[in-house]
């Protein structure tokens, strides 16, 4: 009897979590409204305690991302509208966000929206010793000759699909994007930077 009670309890909890997740996952990025925070990989977790208090964990894309406050407010509003007013949003910095966390669905939606999705995987960094070695190797390369120039994969134009594109500026309309132009259709476009 007690075991069936526990399993019913577990089932209710799983249902509740599923419902909460559906609500939170529907919140969109205020600057790229075709992407949900789940597509972006900004949503890191949803938990609920015994008293029914909901805690949502998000992580910023960039340190200075001005969308974080709006995303926090939007999550709380969405939860309140679904009947969960007792909620809090916390920010986790580690592990640091990477474009590798962007879903396939998110990449497709970005391209349809006219923003070239991140091209390729982020270079390996992290808290391991490798990161320190990377800095040292950069300096050593300079010692050996010319300044190292990072080689990036070509970025496809989201309008005409041409690979004949050119980076105009590493810094675009938001911190997470760079500015490109297409040599084929001559249209400018944003590219989601790989980090």
């Amino acid at each position, binding site marked *: 009897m007690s075991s069936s009670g526990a399993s019913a309890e577990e089932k209710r909890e799983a249902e509740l979590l599923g419902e909460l997740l559906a609500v939170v996952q529907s919140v969109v990025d205020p600057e790229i409204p075709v992407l949900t925070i789940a597509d972006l990989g900004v949503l890191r977790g949803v938990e609920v305690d015994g008293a029914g208090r909901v805690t949502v964990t998000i992580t910023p894309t960039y340190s200075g991302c001005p969308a974080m406050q709006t995303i926090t407010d939007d999550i709380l509003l969405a939860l309140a509208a679904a009947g969960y007013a007792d909620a809090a949003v916390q920010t986790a910095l580690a592990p640091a966000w990477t474009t590798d966390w962007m879903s396939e669905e998110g990449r497709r939606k970005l391209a349809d929206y006219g923003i070239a999705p991140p091209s390729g995987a982020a270079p390996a960094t992290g808290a391991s010793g490798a*990161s320190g070695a990377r800095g040292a190797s950069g300096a050593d390369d300079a010692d050996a000759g010319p300044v190292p120039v990072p080689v990036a994969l070509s970025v496809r134009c989201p309008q005409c699909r041409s690979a004949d594109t050119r980076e105009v500026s590493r810094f675009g309309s938001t911190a997470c994007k760079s500015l490109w132009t297409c040599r084929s259709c001559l249209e400018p476009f944003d590219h989601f930077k790989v980090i």
Partner: protein
Amino acid sequence: MSAPDRAPMTSAVSTYALRLGDDALVLAQRLSAWSSRGHDLEEDIALTNIGLDLLGQARMLLTYAGTVEGGSRTEDDLAYLREERDFTNLLLVEQPNGDFARTIARQLLFSTWQLALWEALQSSADETLAAVAGKAVKEADYHRDHAVQWTLRLGDGTDESHHRMQAAVDALWPYVDEVFTVDDVEQALVAGGVAVDAASLRPGWDRFVDGVLAEATLTRPEDGWNPSGGRRGMHTESFGYLLSEMQHLHRSHPGATW
């Protein structure tokens, strides 16, 4: 760590976070002044984006400094309500924007240092500092690259751009020495695995910057006069003007929010 050690260590962590936060905050404020003043739209956006990254880093570090010291001061209290002598940023970051070459030289000297700092700080024994560094390192990589590309373009450009870029590097060179100075506060944190030994980053910084200067046909200035004091709150003349502009709104309208 034994209990008697903990109090001074905690206060040192707060001091260290505040120093790194002040560096980022003050440079962010300087860069924000380029908004609508860039020579083209792309550059206007680039410099202010870099400023925004730095502001984000500053917010995390100032918030952490306030939390570690006991939680009575918020990021806003620390940014807007401290006096000049309470700011502990490097003299380098407070130097005026000058012409575009001066801003780029400041970016090159600082971001080469900051990138190496974040790379090393990722393995700090302090989890929050390591997490901040883990985020910031990706941003600093772009900042340094931006400064390198412009240094090459201006240094190896026209006679006028070469002259200005050389003058800019010459003017800012005296402030480099302070960046790599380690005082007792940091020495104790280095021993505890919390802080990065700044002096140990100098050889790598020298190699990288020397390589960029050489490729840009610029001459590395002679080492000579080395002003310092930023970490002790002793600042250069222009800093007070920066603070008055940055703090004016908050002080005139206490508690104002968006």
